[in-house]
């Protein structure tokens, strides 16, 4: 049963990663910086539980806050550019953050051994869950509590006036601006919320894998973050969840026994899914 609980943990964390990109995509922006916010949350939360001895909940909260703050700071200059330029700008930021962690050393002696991030060798022993006797099932419930809160919050956003404004900007910036919508405020706020969700997901990721390093937050992760809401569809938050289940459970885990064929099928099935459901698994055709 632990295997299925573990799989549910992975789905939960990737759902948060996908949701962080979902809200940004609603404004029509394509950000490859989500992996960076994910990494910032992971290192922040990991350092707080391992080095400062914090409880996991405030540590995850701090990871989300730092992720949000960074996203907000990045959002102002980055969102002045559009389309492919924004993709390049956020990609550059993501790589910058990854390289920062690649060179980031901050170790302290604790219990006779040195702990903390050690540059390219990563940050090991983020063992809050096992050290506090949490079973795999309990960790799964804990993670999904955050996922459900995040999904509920985004669902509510989506149905509020704020959500309507996000979608209006995403549909037609000029039209939105002409009716008085402040584009910068909307885009930066979406980026900030996305950064908070990514930071939260990263914090959880660090604690369930127990070891993080720069390569966990590379452009491939950023691509996955974008792919989930695109494959799932932008109609609602469930599309992202469906895409994560499709990729992580069916493609990665379900096809594991196919060996080398799995990688070939992986791409082919995503192309097939997008052809059969061009507006996403949960997407609606436009009138």
């Amino acid at each position, binding site marked *: *049963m*632990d*295997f299925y*609980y*573990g*799989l549910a943990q*992975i789905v939960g964390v990737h759902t948060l990663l996908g949701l962080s990109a979902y809200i940004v995509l609603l404004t029509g922006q394509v950000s490859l910086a989500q992996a960076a916010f994910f990494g910032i949350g992971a290192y922040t939360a990991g350092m707080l539980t391992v080095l400062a001895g914090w409880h996991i909940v405030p540590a995850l909260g701090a990871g989300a806050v730092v992720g949000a703050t960074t996203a907000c700071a990045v959002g102002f200059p980055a969102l002045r550019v559009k389309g492919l330029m924004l993709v390049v700008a956020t990609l550059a930021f993501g790589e910058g953050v990854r390289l920062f962690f*690649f060179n980031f050393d901050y170790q302290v002696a604790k219990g006779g051994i040195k702990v903390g991030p050690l540059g*390219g*060798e*990563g940050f*090991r*022993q*983020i*063992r809050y*869950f*096992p*050290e*506090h*006797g*949490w*079973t*795999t099932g309990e960790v799964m419930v804990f993670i999904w509590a955050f996922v459900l809160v995040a999904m509920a919050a985004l669902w509510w956003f989506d149905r509020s006036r704020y959500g309507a404004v996000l979608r209006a900007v995403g549909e037609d910036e000029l039209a939105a601006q002409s009716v008085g919508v402040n584009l910068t405020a909307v885009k930066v706020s979406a980026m900030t919320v996305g950064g908070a969700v990514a930071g939260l997901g990263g914090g959880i990721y660090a604690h*369930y*894998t*127990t*070891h993080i*390093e*720069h*390569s*966990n937050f590379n452009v491939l992760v950023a691509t996955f973050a974008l792919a989930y809401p695109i494959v799932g569809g932008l109609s609602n938050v469930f599309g992202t969840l469906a895409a994560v289940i499709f990729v992580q459970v069916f493609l*990665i*885990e379900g096809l*594991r026994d196919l*060996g*080398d064929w*799995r*990688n070939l099928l992986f791409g082919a099935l995503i192309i097939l899914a997008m052809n059969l459901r061009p507006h996403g698994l949960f997407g609606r055709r436009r009138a």
Partner: protein
Amino acid sequence: MKRIAIALAVSLAVSGAALAQEKTIKIAGFGAKTGAVRSFGVNSEAALLAAADVINKQGGVRLADGSKAKIAVEFYDDRCTAEEGISIIRRIAGTEAIVAVGPTCSNVAEPLFGILQKKVDDKSDSGLQMPIFTDVAVKGGLAKISEWSFRNVPSEWTMYSSLFYWLKTRNPGAQTVYGGVEEDFAHSRASWYAVMKDRAEANGYKVLGNSKWLLNDSNFATQVREMKNANADIVAIAAHPFTTCGVLKEMQRQGVKPKVLIGLTSSSSMETLQGCAKQAEGIIIPTSFAPVTKEGKFAAETTAKFKGAADLHSMAAWENMFILKDVIESEKVSGNKDQLQADRRKIRDGLAKLKETKGLLGITKRTEDREADKPYLFVQATKGEWKVLHDPL
């Protein structure tokens, strides 16, 4: 009626014997079978299957009740990613496997060992209680992460200490060293900064610097230009076969010819020779395997029948299988489904007790922190083959 009774008795006896013979001990293997380091996983799987086949043909493994059981191997592809490695070990823990052999990549081993129980019998630690016996992931000091983790990988510290010491006596004219490091690969990076560079300086060499590249790089012109400008006597390349070959080809193009060329232990494999035998000519690498003993040759030939190549990593998997056979027998593993966790504990305790094991090059000493101190050789690429250059032991 009598005939029916006899037939029934015979059929029961036959089916009973068949049932007894069907008892199997499951050993799970896992590693990278896809991606840039896929050959390691492919070779490990072949070696595990080959070793299990040899054991099974010899009658199998003796269980606590005196019966014999066959060994069944199931191998999983972790694609060299931490998340998949964790998922796989949880999946293996849910099967009847009594031990897992793997993984390929050190960046998978680190989180994997992290989710295991750190100290045995620590009731407050809910980490996974599953013995893992690593064959490939070679980055130094990983087994100390958990008392459920064991490794049968060579000590690079010992091997490169010995290599630089030997080079000092063999090439007294060589004074300077320049490094090349596959910067984003945990093992390569640790091997250069914590082992090769350190050991070179400890043996009186002056390290002039190092060039860096990434595992997926395909252009090495700038790095080799730096190397050329340094003009060191010895060039040490801490990289896996794929980028090692790329760098060696670029070195040939730019005419960089150091007096001595040293490679990473993981590159003493067929992949290097298949990829760049001409450019690798003369490279010296310390390794914990070469088919120089009767047992080594047999292991290499048997593994080849399972479509795998013999190298220091795959032959560690081969050795692991025979070590596990001995542990299963000495610790009286039951092989019963209802005693699975107890059997896993017996395997862990049995591995922890080992002071030395029999390897393909000789006796391997086991350390207190569950690592191996394996015998080693220096091999040199010569006309498309690895030839033993020196046996320091």
